[in-house]
C-alpha cells in the first residue's frame, strides 16, 4: 500500500508510521534544505537549492495530490516561517511560502470539497538550530514532553475536519503562539 505521506527524512518516516486517514489524503513534508547561512554568504546556487527547488517540488506535489483525488491535504512546515530565524532567511521564506500556499489551495479547491491545511512544528523537528535562529518565542514552551504531530495530522485527514481548511495548526507544545 502506498503511504499517504510524501517526503524524505526522519519526520516523514515517523509520520508514515503513525498518521492515519479516513479518506483519500496526502501529507506533504516539503524538502527543505536546512543549512544555516548568513544572507551575505548565499550564492545563487544556494537560493536555488533552498528556495526555488523546494517550492517547485511542493507545488508539484500539491498538484499531484489534487490530481490523485485526495480530499484531505496537509503540509507540514516548521514555525520558523512564522517567526523568522537568523541565518535561515531562505529556509524561513520557503516555510512561510508553503504555509500560505496552503491557503491559496484551500480557497481554490474548496469548491470541489478538498481541504488543505498546514501543521507547523518546532524548528528542531526539521533539524533547524534554534541556538542560531534566535528565540522562537519570548515565552517558554507551555507544555512539557515530547510533541508528536501525527494525531493532529490524522485529525485533519478525517471526516470530522471537513470544515477546517486553509488553517495552520501549530503543534509545538505551545511555544509559538
Amino acid at each position, binding site marked *: 500500500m502506498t503511504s499517504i505521506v510524501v517526503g524524505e527524512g526522519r519526520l516523514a518516516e515517523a509520520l508514515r508510521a503513525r498518521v492515519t486517514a479516513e479518506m483519500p489524503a496526502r501529507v506533504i513534508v516539503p524538502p527543505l534544505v536546512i543549512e544555516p547561512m548568513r544572507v551575505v554568504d548565499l550564492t545563487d546556487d544556494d537560493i536555488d537549492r533552498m528556495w526555488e527547488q523546494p517550492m517547485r517540488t511542493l507545488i508539484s506535489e500539491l498538484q499531484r495530490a489534487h490530481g490523485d483525488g485526495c480530499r484531505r491535504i496537509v503540509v507540514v512546515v516548521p514555525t*520558523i516561517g512564522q517567526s*523568522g530565524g537568523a541565518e535561515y*532567511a531562505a529556509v524561513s*521564506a520557503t516555510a512561510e511560502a508553503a504555509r500560505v500556499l496552503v491557503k491559496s489551495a484551500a*480557497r481554490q479547491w474548496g469548491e470541489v470539497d478538498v481541504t488543505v491545511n498546514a501543521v507547523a512544528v518546532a524548528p528542531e523537528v526539521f533539524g533547524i538550530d534554534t541556538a542560531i535562529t534566535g528565540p522562537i518565542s519570548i515565552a517558554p514552551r507551555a507544555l512539557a514532553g515530547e510533541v508528536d504531530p501525527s494525531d493532529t495530522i490524522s485529525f485533519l485527514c478525517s471526516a470530522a475536519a471537513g470544515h477546517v481548511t486553509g488553517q495552520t495548526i501549530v503543534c509545538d507544545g505551545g511555544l509559538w503562539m
Partner: protein
Amino acid sequence: MNRRGTSLAGRVAIVTGAGQGVGEGIARRLAEHGATVIVAARRAETGEPVAASIRGDGGSATCVETDVTKGESIAACVTHTVAEFGRLDIVVHNAFTGAIPHRLENAVLDKHWKGMSLTAGWASLQCAREAHLHLAASSRRPRGEGGGRYVLITSPSGVEGSANIPLYSPAKAAQRAIAKSLAREWGPDGITVNCIAPVAASPSLITAFDRNPALQQAIEARTPLGRVGDITDDIGSVALFLAGDDSSYVTGQTIVCDGGSFLGL
C-alpha cells in the same frame, strides 16, 4: 521639496520598480524629504521620466536600469549607487512581475511561478546580499545622519492566500519571512528590515478598474476607509516612516496599508 517632518537629507535610497505605481510613489515621497533616490527601473523609458519629474520638483533622483530578475543587475545597481553617491542607506525592494491568474492544479511553473519567484523570493535575498555592507555602514553613522533600512513590498494576499492568483501569495509570503529573519540577523548591525503590504491605485489596478468598474466598487465597499490608497500620500508615507529615524526601533514587522480591508494580522 521642503516638506515638514521626517528629514532624509543626505541619505541615499534605491527603490526598485520605481518606474511606475507603488515604487514611483515611494520614490517621490522619499525624495520630497531629502533623500537622493535611485529610480531602479527595468526600462529607462519608465524610470527616467520619473527621475526627471522628481528633479523637476526640486528633488535628487537618477534612473539606473535594473532588472531584478538578474542578480548581477542588482549588484551593478548597488555598485553604481555607492560609486556615484558614496553611500547607500535605504533599499526599498518593490519590483514585481508575473502575476497571471491561474488554477493551481493547472499552473505551469515556468509560466505562472518563475517570474514571481525571481522578483519576490530571489530578488529579496539578492538585494539584501548586495546591500548589507552599505546599510551596516549607514547604521554606524550618528543618529540623525544615517541608519540602514531595508523595506520589502509584500501584499495582504501574502498573508491570507489568493483564490485568483494562488502562486502570488506564497511569493509574497516569502518576503515577510525574509524580513523577520533579516531583522534578527541584522539587528546587531543596527539595520531594520520591515514590510509594507499595500493596496494602492497602481497602473495595473487602475487598468483593472477601467475594465471592470464593479471591481473598484467591491474593493471600496470592503475597505473601512472606503477608498483605494494613493501611491504617494498613502503608501509612500508609510515607506518614509520605515526609511527614517522615527522607526528606528521597529523591525521585522509588516504594516498593512490597505485602508483597513485586511485585519488578520
